[in-house]
């Protein structure tokens, strides 16, 4: 009786799961064959196969500059965000100060506030300060967007480590700095690295804020893609998109590997 009830339900559940996955990643997968197309325009399905759009993506300076710029911004953002975010998470998890809840909410707010609002706000100030189109300007903006990811992953790691380990370190003669460097940091390192990778990804494919804060002289890859899709319709953009997707996938896989490394007490 229960079996006959169960089997159709399970099948339905499985079908729903497959549909959801197709719905989520289908659009990304459509892009991949279009990059290998022999056609002059973006079309699906491709009429034939060719690698020339990849050749163009990796040689045309407007694309290669985009790669270099995006990578620089993402790496610097990840480093800065990881350092700031780790200390912020430590302060929130271990510190006792008034307004802690408020500080925490402010750090997490970029997750909730619409990006376009953040972008417009930053743009109006950046224009006045004349720092649009600079690497550091975009890094600062992306750091604000990526900070919540680092704070959340590091806070989660901090919650899993036994407070007594830190107390024991102090008891054994380690001041706060050495307790952090010798005990806390090694134990939360998987969370810190995961936060670093998330911060990298946040910046790597960020387009809204970047459209406002970049200029023709300094463009990141997603902005270049946005511009090209509006003007040109050759399949290079699909090739670039596939490369971006590949980098993102590798970084996400790294996150999983890093998370597995968590030491067990």
């Amino acid at each position: 009786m229960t079996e006959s009830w169960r089997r159709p339900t399970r099948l339905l559940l499985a079908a729903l799961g497959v549909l959801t996955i197709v719905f989520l990643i289908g659009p990304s997968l459509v892009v991949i064959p279009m990059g290998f197309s022999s056609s002059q325009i973006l079309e699906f399905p491709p009429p034939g196969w060719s690698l020339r759009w990849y050749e163009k993506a990796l040689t045309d300076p407007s694309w290669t500059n985009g790669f270099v710029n995006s990578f620089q911004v993402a790496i610097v953002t990840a480093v800065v965000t990881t350092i700031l975010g780790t200390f912020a998470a430590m302060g929130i998890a271990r510190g006792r100060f008034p307004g802690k809840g408020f500080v925490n909410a402010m750090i997490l707010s970029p997750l909730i506030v619409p990006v376009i609002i953040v972008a417009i706000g930053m743009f109006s100030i950046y224009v006045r300060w004349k720092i649009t189109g600079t690497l550091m300007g975009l890094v600062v903006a992306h750091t604000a967007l990526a900070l919540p990811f680092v704070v959340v992953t590091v806070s989660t790691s901090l919650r899993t480590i036994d407070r007594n380990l830190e107390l024991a370190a102090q008891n054994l003669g380690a001041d706060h700095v050495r307790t952090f460097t010798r005990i806390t940091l090694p134990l939360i390192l998987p969370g810190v690295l995961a936060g670093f990778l998330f911060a990298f990804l946040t910046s790597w494919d960020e387009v809204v804020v970047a459209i406002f804060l970049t200029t023709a002289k300094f463009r990141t890859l997603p902005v270049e893609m946005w511009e090209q899709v509006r003007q040109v319709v050759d399949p290079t953009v699909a090739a670039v998109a596939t490369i971006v997707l590949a980098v993102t996938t590798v970084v996400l896989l790294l996150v999983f590997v890093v998370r597995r490394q968590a030491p067990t007490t």
Partner: protein
Amino acid sequence: MTTSDRLAATGGKPALVLRGLAKRFGDVAAVDGVDLEVRRGEFLTLLGPSGSGKTTTLRMIAGFTSQSAGTIEIDGVDMSRVPPYRRDVGMVFQNYALYPHMTVAENVAFPLQMRHMARAEIKRQVADTLGLVKLASHGERYPRQLSGGQQQRIALARAVVFKPRLLLMDEPLGALDKKLRESLQLEIMHISRELGATVIYVTHDQEEALVMSDRIAIFRDGRIEQLGGGEDLYDRPISLFVADFIGESNILRGRFERDGAGGWLNRGAWRLRVGAPAVERAPIEDGSQAALIVRPERLLIVGMGEDGGVGANHVEATVSDVLYLGSMRKYALRLTDGQAAVVRRPVDGEREFAHGDRVHLTWAVDDAVLVDASERSP
């Protein structure tokens, strides 16, 4: 610095002095005025039920928690506001708190590295200390590869390797099974004696406290209810709480009546003699509620017909259960007024009683302790 050096350097001052130590969390006083002096080399146990303030007291000594009032002196130096990493006390945690990302040897080396000791000297001392806890060959392993008992010995090694002024232990054997606990009790005693360490040991296990301690401080509601050696506490508890907490006891409540140096305890039809020493130890007002405490092995069972063996104090009872414990026989009895009683007698050469036997329970007047039972009694 060896123990004798330190003795000379500190002029024989007590290793630890607590004065009026208190800790309030909001309106609740977790520790409510603790005064304590611990001698150098002494093994002192803080014993009490959970929430009695013993662990909070230990954490204040370690410096993890700041006190609301009072002072902490270690080796004659006021440590009240000194951060934990400059107090030079070692602590063993109940859950071991070993570093999972370090090997056993690295764990034990940690406090020495924090003291900037030379590498060769660290290596030598780590090896010595691992030898002391009989785990010399386990230095390269990680804590998770060791058993619970082994982990606890590593935690002990790490807490003593830097020769701290005090060794604090917070229910270190709480997570282990009974047999392992007993062998580790002996080991901890031997090691601390060998090192001449001053130990402050927290437990809620009264047997553990009796076995290991030179003195025991019984905690109740944030205060020390009684401080003394195991025999003091067992033979001369100052309250029902202590009598109840340490060992088994028979408690006979009644109204106290003063009579010269001694007195009487009136309980229903019974009028029980109280010896002068017992009255002297417990100044109880004439006519107030009191209780006589008699330990199970101080009670003698006498058959109903053999009134010759009955002493000044005796009550009638019926045997309800007989438990054979190897060297001892434990009798559970019910007094004629319904109260339960326990008697422990050696098996050899004593008459055996059986379920349903009607008997007299009798005791020497000076084997009973008189305590106040007017208020605050469990």
